[in-house]
């Protein structure tokens, strides 16, 4: 297991290493690969949607397939692309930032990844097995209950699996941050990305159970003959909407807060100034998370909750603009008077500020109940949430990838290609979505398969589709950049950006135990403090001693395969009871793996002091 023995290995050995790994950095890379794959799938679906809407009354794809496309685009992008990419970044970077050697529960970390990945695969199996889910990514009852075929069943089981994985990941990060901070790393010295990881994990912990419950109710209704959402039998279809949005609104903060954290790292680094208003930033993050739990009904203004409920939720929603505004101004003030370096990572961060502000502004417009009756379910809403999710989260992920790529993979991404990709994607993005505000105000409804000629919608949709192609090309160039850089990229030094936080005190990529000696943290931006005091190196907090490391394990994968098989059983047992066998076999595999994990002692291994001394440069 020591690094000397792992230099040259065959492909099989490497594959086995990744299948069994419990190392937070490798799991983070797996998350990035998995999330990247689903991001491409979701992007492909987006392209197909935009081709269908290129001209009026197009018949590029059928109406039914269009419904499947929009459903899978939304579901894939939110659950299988954006969130895993962020979880991957958190996985690699957060333990480095707090000076830990791994996350608190390495085994669970691996389990969380495999649950997400096989859940996503399960969901996408539906394409080949009689049709994907077609009730929208929100899957509102009663539409989702009555949708024929097995599409929505795959939605339920796929999201249940990947949701469990996310929940496990969130709890893991919480425990890691609470218990494993390096000596001196107090809460108020944690970098903002770690703070947002912490707050995001709290949101995951409290919000995902609502989705789990909702999905179970939908599962019981569709597969086991229950009637939670069946009004004719005394059920209530609105419960789904409440449960979904009690989860769904915190979910969008689960997506955006880590992106906020990313920008709060990048802007100070490339402005060569400490983050302006650190305390206010932390407080604003907490406030956004807190308010995020009491605004879900703003997605349901037109359901008929009544004027009192609508007014309360409208005010609460508008209140979120305050902490978000604090953040925007703090980022601006961070750059103010700084020595700004503009590279790809910084470009994404700079583009984010105005783009996200536009998205926030339309958010306040939508929060006004009265106006929302006009905007609801039009392209105005589509434009709004793409401005915040693409302009916030996707820009954030791309910025983070450029920023942390050297740390994760040891190579610097090509700057020229990075900038070309940025400009194509950035211009394409605004072409695609800015015009959709006006399409929406002109009355074009969301989720419609075709639009008619001569209603003033032709030009807008054409522009939007052209923009989407530009985004696609930008995305492809980023992909080529990754391949090019992994072959020919410049080898990265430990600290290529003149960084401020602890992750830049480790090698690029970091050794598998991260820190030979745990670092002593003497303040906010610990590496910068040491640089300013002329040392440039982190002071160790402990003498060199042997390091306790966890063993790898294939059990998380086996466990997840068990749940995967059982999910097929649950989906198809409505057709034929013989499928119950799949449930029994799958659950037996999963429970067997759990039992093995519980009964077999695995105390990990130690890296001896001598070995560590030998590795010293």
């Amino acid at each position, binding site marked *: 297991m020591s690094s000397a023995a792992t230099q040259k290995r065959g492909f099989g050995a490497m594959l086995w290493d990744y299948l069994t790994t419990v190392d937070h950095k490798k799991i983070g890379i797996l998350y990035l690969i998995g999330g990247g794959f689903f991001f491409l799938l979701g992007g492909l679906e987006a392209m197909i949607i935009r081709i269908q809407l290129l001209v009026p009354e197009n018949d590029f794809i059928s109406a039914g397939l269009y419904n499947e496309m929009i459903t899978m685009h939304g579901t894939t992008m939110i659950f299988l692309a954006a969130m895993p990419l962020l979880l991957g970044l958190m996985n690699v970077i957060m333990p480095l930032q707090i000076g830990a050697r791994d996350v608190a529960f390495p085994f669970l970390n691996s389990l969380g990844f495999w649950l997400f990945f096989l859940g996503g695969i399960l969901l996408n199996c539906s394409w080949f097995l009689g049709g994907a889910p077609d009730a929208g990514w929100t899957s509102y009852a009663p539409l989702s209950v009555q949708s024929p075929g097995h599409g929505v069943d795959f939605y339920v089981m796929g999201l249940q699996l990947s949701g469990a994985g996310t929940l496990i990941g969130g709890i893991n990060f*919480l425990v890691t941050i*609470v218990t494993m901070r390096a000596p001196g790393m107090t809460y108020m010295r944690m970098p903002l990305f770690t703070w947002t990881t912490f707050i995001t994990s*709290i949101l995951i*912990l*409290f*919000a995902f159970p*609502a989705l789990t419950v909702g999905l179970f109710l939908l599962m019981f209704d569709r597969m086991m003959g229950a009637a939670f959402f069946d009004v004719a039998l005394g059920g*209530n279809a*609105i*419960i789904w909407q*409440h449960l979904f949005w*009690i989860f769904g609104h915190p979910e969008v903060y689960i997506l955006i807060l880590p992106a906020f954290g990313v920008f709060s790292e990048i802007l100070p680094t490339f402005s060569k100034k400490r983050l302006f208003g650190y305390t206010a930033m932390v407080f604003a993050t907490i406030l956004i998370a807190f308010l995020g*739990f*009491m605004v879900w*009904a703003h997605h349901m203004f037109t359901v008929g*909750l*009544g004027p009192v*409920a609508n007014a309360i939720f409208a005010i609460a929603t508008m209140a979120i603009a305050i902490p978000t505004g604090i953040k925007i101004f703090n980022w601006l003030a961070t750059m103010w008077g700084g020595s700004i370096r503009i590279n790809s990572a910084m470009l994404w961060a700079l583009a984010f500020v105005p783009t996200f502000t536009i998205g926030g502004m339309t958010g306040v417009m939508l929060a006004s109940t009265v106006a929302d009756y006009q905007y609801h379910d039009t392209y105005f809403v589509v434009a709004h949430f793409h401005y915040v999710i693409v302009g916030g989260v996707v820009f954030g992920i791309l910025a983070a990838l450029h920023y942390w790529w050297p740390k994760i993979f040891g190579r610097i991404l090509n700057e020229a290609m990075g900038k070309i990709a940025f400009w194509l994607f950035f211009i394409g993005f605004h072409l695609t979505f800015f015009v959709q505000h006006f399409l929406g105000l002109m009355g074009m409804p969301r989720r419609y398969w075709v639009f008619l000629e001569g209603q003033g919608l032709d030009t807008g949709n054409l522009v939007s589709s052209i923009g989407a192609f530009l985004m696609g090309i930008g995305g492809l160039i980023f992909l080529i950049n990754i391949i090019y850089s992994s072959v020919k990229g410049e080898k990265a030094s430990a600290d290529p950006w003149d960084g401020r936080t602890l992750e830049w005190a480790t090698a690029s990529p970091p050794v598998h135990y991260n820190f030979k000696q745990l670092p002593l943290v003497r303040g906010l931006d610990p590496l910068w403090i040491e640089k300013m005091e002329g040392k440039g190196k982190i002071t160790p907090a402990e003498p060199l001693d042997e390091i306790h490391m966890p063993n790898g394990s294939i059990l998380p994968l086996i466990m997840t395969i068990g749940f995967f098989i059982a999910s097929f059983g649950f989906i198809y047992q409505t057709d034929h009871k013989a499928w119950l066998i799949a449930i029994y076999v799958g659950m037996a595999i999963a429970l067997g793996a759990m039992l093995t994990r519980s009964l077999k002692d695995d105390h990990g291994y130690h890296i001896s002091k001598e070995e560590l001394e030998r590795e010293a440069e």
Partner: protein
Amino acid sequence: MANNPNTSKLKMNSFQRQKKKEEMKKQVISFALMIGFTLIAFGLVGFSEMDSMFLVPILLILAVVQVGFQFYYFMHMKDKDHEMPAVMIYGGVFAAMLTLAALIVITWW
């Protein structure tokens, strides 16, 4: 507390033994009280002729006290260094209560 290397049986000094004894006493008392509360709750439902307007609040109060025992004694929230678990638990209680209140008030009322 469990991580304190001094708590191994051999090295335990009289002060720590005293503390352990007190801790055990508290655990037993709260356990007995919880059993008692449960018996009272079942008894009230099973044998009393109380009006439900009166009975339900009593049961709720008993339940809240039991949850308190659970959190503070059995899950050690009364001990030092449990601020973060307390914040998390109360945060979770807040989110759950909000959900229930909303469903009751706007969906079923």
